[in-house]
């Protein structure tokens, strides 16, 4: 079938109203106009433009690049939709790319499903769609299929996005959460807690002189460089909800090891430190959207750090701790003054101090 003929024949729809209405989710002309004008024109690639119900991806192309498919999904419900350093669209692309990348996969294709509350402005929706498109394009990833639903006022909070990602894992890469061993080193690629703090600030509760920005970023190229320099890397995970502390607990539990980190080695921006001090929050539990925890064998630590530091998203890469003998699943911290305390899983949400 001649794709050019199909594409040329179909005229693009355009939206003529300022806000999203239930009609835009009804499956008729209004919906076609919305999808064409806001999403298809932004994402704009041959796979998507066929407008079939599914994206069709030749297997032989995938098999030349890797021997396993990596497949992941995530929903994004962040509030506010737009915050310093990004927006829900950028987050939806980076988060899913990173979920592929931490498994050593080359991210290739994304789906993008959107649920919109009636009353959202077309201008806002367009801005988010552009953000999705630009973030994906910069990362070299295509949005190849999607869905749009409109719900009545109150049925969702403005906008929810779900992205599913497909990638391939090159042969020989076998990262596993259960593979940490005594003697391994714990690394991170930069300052911790920026995204969580930025969201709390953006919600308007505290007015700060220095705005804190989210660290939202796609990490697949950084991770590829890391794995090339340190092929013995055991495991990588992005430290999203629950922060670095949660990831460390997950690793310690799954590998049946103890982990200890050094408070003086954990890199945190001064503004985030100050913000956390005032509110009584612990930055180790704040979300990151551009930071990963990496477990490497000791002999590859220096190579891993150097490779990351060469990359713009890894300039602040440091060693924060090690895997040691001790109670399986226990994570401890050597405090700034030389004491020792446990770094546990978070219970509920972090709530600010009273006095």
């Amino acid at each position, binding site marked *: 079938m001649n794709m050019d003929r199909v594409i040329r024949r179909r005229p693009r729809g355009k939206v003529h109203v300022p806000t999203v209405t239930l009609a835009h989710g009804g499956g008729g002309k209004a919906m076609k106009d919305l999808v064409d004008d806001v999403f298809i024109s932004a994402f704009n690639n041959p796979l998507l433009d066929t407008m079939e119900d599914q994206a069709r991806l030749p297997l032989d192309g995938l098999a030349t690049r890797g021997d396993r498919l990596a497949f992941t999904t995530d929903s994004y419900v962040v509030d506010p939709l737009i915050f310093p350093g990004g927006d829900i669209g950028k987050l939806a692309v980076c988060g899913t790319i990173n979920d592929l990348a931490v498994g050593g996969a080359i991210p290739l294709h994304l789906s993008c499903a959107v649920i919109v509350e009636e009353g959202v402005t077309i201008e806002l929706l367009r801005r988010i769609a552009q953000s999705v498109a630009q973030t994906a394009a910069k990362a070299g990833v295509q949005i190849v299929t999607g869905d749009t639903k409109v719900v009545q006022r109150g049925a969702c909070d403005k906008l929810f996005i779900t992205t599913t990602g497909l990638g391939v894992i090159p042969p020989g890469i076998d990262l596993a959460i259960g593979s940490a061993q005594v003697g391994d080193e714990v690394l991170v690629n930069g300052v911790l807690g920026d995204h969580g703090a930025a969201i709390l600030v953006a919600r308007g*509760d*505290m007015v700060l002189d220095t705005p804190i920005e989210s660290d939202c970023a796609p990490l697949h190229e950084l991770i590829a460089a890391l794995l090339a320099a340190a092929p013995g890397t055991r495991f990588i995970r992005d430290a999203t909800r629950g922060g670095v502390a949660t990831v460390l607990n997950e690793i310690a539990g799954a590998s049946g090891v103890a982990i200890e980190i050094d408070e*003086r080695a954990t890199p945190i921006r*001064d503004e985030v*430190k*100050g913000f956390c*001090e005032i*509110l*009584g929050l612990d930055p180790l539990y704040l979300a990151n959207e551009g930071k990963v925890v990496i477990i490497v064998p000791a002999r590859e630590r220096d190579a891993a750090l150097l490779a990351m530091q060469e990359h713009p998203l890894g300039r602040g890469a440091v060693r924060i701790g090690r895997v040691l003998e001790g109670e399986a699943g226990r994570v*401890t911290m050597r*405090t*700034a*003054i*030389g*004491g*020792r*305390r*446990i770094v*546990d899983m978070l*219970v*509920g949400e972090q*709530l*600010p*101090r*009273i*006095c």
Partner: protein
Amino acid sequence: MKFVDEFRDRQNAEALVAEIARLAASIGITRTRPLQIMEVCGGHTHSIFRYGIEGMLPASVELVHGPGCPVCVLPMGRIDDCVSIAERPGVIVTTFGDAMRVPGSRKSLLQARAEGADIRMVYSPMDALELARKNPSREVVFFAIGFETTMPATALTVLQAEADGIANFSVFCNHITIVPTIKAILDSPDLQLDGFLGPGHVSMVVGTTPYEFVSQFYRKPLVVAGFEPLDVLLSIVMVLRQIKEGRAEVENQYSRIVPDEGNAAALRAVAQVYELREFFEWRGLGSIDHSGIRFREAYARFDAERRFTVPNAKIADPKSCQCGEVLKGVLKPWQCKVFGSACTPEAPLGALMVSSEGACAAYYQYGGRRGQDAA
């Protein structure tokens, strides 16, 4: 100076710990049991656990965790009262963070919120007043908790509400006073304390003179302490020096924040709006005379207890709950029968497991389970 870094310097900390060990050893020659120092204030408990200070001290010095956590001592009946206010249509209840998780006899404020009550977290009572200003058709109630530290903010907010003629704002007042707390500890037959770390931010308001009864009548040293780890360590050194030298005085380690005479403007605002209650119910400690405050008659219209009828029931703690003994320092958290089993942060039986300043929550989160130290 950044304050955050200088007061967490490892070398200085190690020097102070060495001094503590030296003093404890020289005092210890004449003693058969460890030296017991109580930190009254929940903020100190949090600091001690968060930095792992207890594990750095010699075995001859024991820290006893006191009842100075205003959330921890809230009786369940008062939570029920607040929930009943929140469940009235049109009411917005505002509160600080931790109070939302404390279990009442049926549910916590957090659970009430999940079931549809309008309960919002605020950082200051002024936020609650702002909410009342912006929502004239709603009744806004501020759930006021805290020792003297937070009383001035509540009082000043009420004065502001009066000046601005705000009619839809009231306060559910659970403020408590520190002196009766310390006195109840000293009068308790279960305890044999050798000294105190005095509250830091309460003292910023009340000064250091209210604690003189501790040194003059009970002959125990009390050092008003700051919250950074070096503050805590230095304060312990100061208490031990007093013991070694046979002194019993009130000393002020936190002088960079605490004026000896307190904050006169804050105290004036509090005295204008509030008066002492004859007695107030404390979780685990029972009824303590003159330990709570209530609105003066002139400000009765801001008193949520008079604006709304509340159940006002005295709810006994669950039988297995030993919060009272842990609050008094008689039991260590892990010695409570239900610590870590029936009572955990996910499903707390008592308030000490809820608040981040409660000894049980602090120990569970930072210090291990079942009596195992992190050190």
